[in-house]
């Protein structure tokens, strides 16, 4: 019996990941949150721990405008300009 697959092929989207740094010393770490409570307090705590642990680190905080929507272009561009690595946290 021959059947047709109902799965549409995932459209190929070519994106490359930025290279990972070997060390975090002196880098800018972006903290991107989805605005849902209590992610802001989680990020406060995480920022403190990162500052305590990593010499010379700076923290860049930013949030999406809506928790269930993809990050807006200006948010993505701000992260790209102001952070070397990013932690994206989802509160729910």
């Amino acid at each position, binding site marked *: *019996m*021959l*059947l*047709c*697959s*109902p*799965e*549409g*092929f*995932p*459209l*190929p*989207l*070519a*994106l*490359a*990941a930025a*290279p*990972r*740094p*070997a*060390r*975090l010393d002196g880098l800018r*770490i972006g903290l991107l949150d989805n605005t*849902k*409570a*209590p*992610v802001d*307090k*989680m990020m406060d*705590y*995480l920022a403190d*721990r990162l500052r305590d*642990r990593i010499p010379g680190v700076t923290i860049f905080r930013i949030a999406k405008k*809506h*928790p*269930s*929507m*993809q990050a807006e272009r200006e948010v993505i561009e701000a992260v790209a300009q102001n952070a070397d*690595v990013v*932690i994206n946290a989802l*509160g*729910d």
Partner: protein
Amino acid sequence: MTQARVLGLPSLPRVVLPHPIGGTTMDTIAPKLDAAFEDILAGLTTPLPITAAGSAAVLRAERIDVPAGDDAWDDAQREFMRRGWGDGLPMVPPTPARVQAMLRFVDHAPDHVVAALAPRMGAATVEAIAVNAVMAGCRPVHLPLLIAAVHAMAERRFNLYGIQATTHCVSPLLIINGPLARVMNINGSTGMFGPGPWDNGVVGRAIRLLLLNVGGAVPVEIDKSTMGHPAKYTFVMAENEDASPWPSLRAERGYSDEVTTVTVVGAEGPHNINDHESITADGLLKMIAGSMAQPGQNNVYYAAEPLLILSPEHSATIAGGGYDKDSLKRKLFEDARVPLSMFSRENIERRMHRKFPELYKNAPDDVGVRLAHRPEDFMVVVAGGPGKHSMYVPTFGGTLSVTESIAHSDGRPYLGSDFGE
């Protein structure tokens, strides 16, 4: 993570903190973060093995040879379950002959990509839509409707990405307006949400199969809906335009009489509004507004389009009181408000003050929390049969409805004559 995989980053590092997170305090979250801290640091510094996404799309449906035993129907059902396809209910085997027959009334090429469905970004080709339509039990007359609905769901403002993965119980509701509702056997009168011998059920089921099989919203893995919802199996209605005292939804959105439209709404399940006693418009609207004003719905938090489905009898009473659609929407905007005192102190402080400080930060407890940002954001349609029951349909919030005409590949609207009517 499905999107990361599609984008060529299947190993994008993630750290999962065990639930619950929402509704808890740092007393319980901090130890979880401490336990995950080294993994977070490692995730930032460990090189990623890059797996390139496929270089070329395969746009024709794969043919699968299923060894046939004594009962081909049972063999097909077992194969569906083994591959993780479908909604858990038996499906019609999509043989090439059935799929070809499903394409009868469309003039698009089978490999035409109608949309990429999030989060898997699967190509919803005309053929893939036809395959899922066959499996759901649809007839060829339904395919143009499904194509329009898929295109509408992929509009950015509909936010399919969020709808597919949220813990909320949202599902696309399809509202059909126009002359082809009858041709397609879509019920907008008594018992329209089912059950019954009409085609609302199979059309909605085809939409769900597409969201599962093409969009990749596999429950538990991607679809994180805390409870799921019966409306996720199927959720389709027609507007009962003949019984409405007002312009229809399609007329409000600028479509002419000969055009049939489908509107997709990111909706919760409906909640009944029983009012057998009010004989004045304002009396009935007091009951309706009061029934809509519930504190636990997404519409109090996000810009939204709350949907009111009025029965013909209720709509006649309201129109008899002098209301047109605009004045009705203004009335709902003013009266369907949730007293702030119905929210817990934690919700007021952690959410309402934070999201809407200009409205609620220094407000008294009896201030009304709105369900929409503007009166025109309320959606009102007339549907159902005789009886004193209407329905309120809260929405997901982070979504706006999208209306599309049911049209040929060149944009001409389908007419009854296209289906031999």
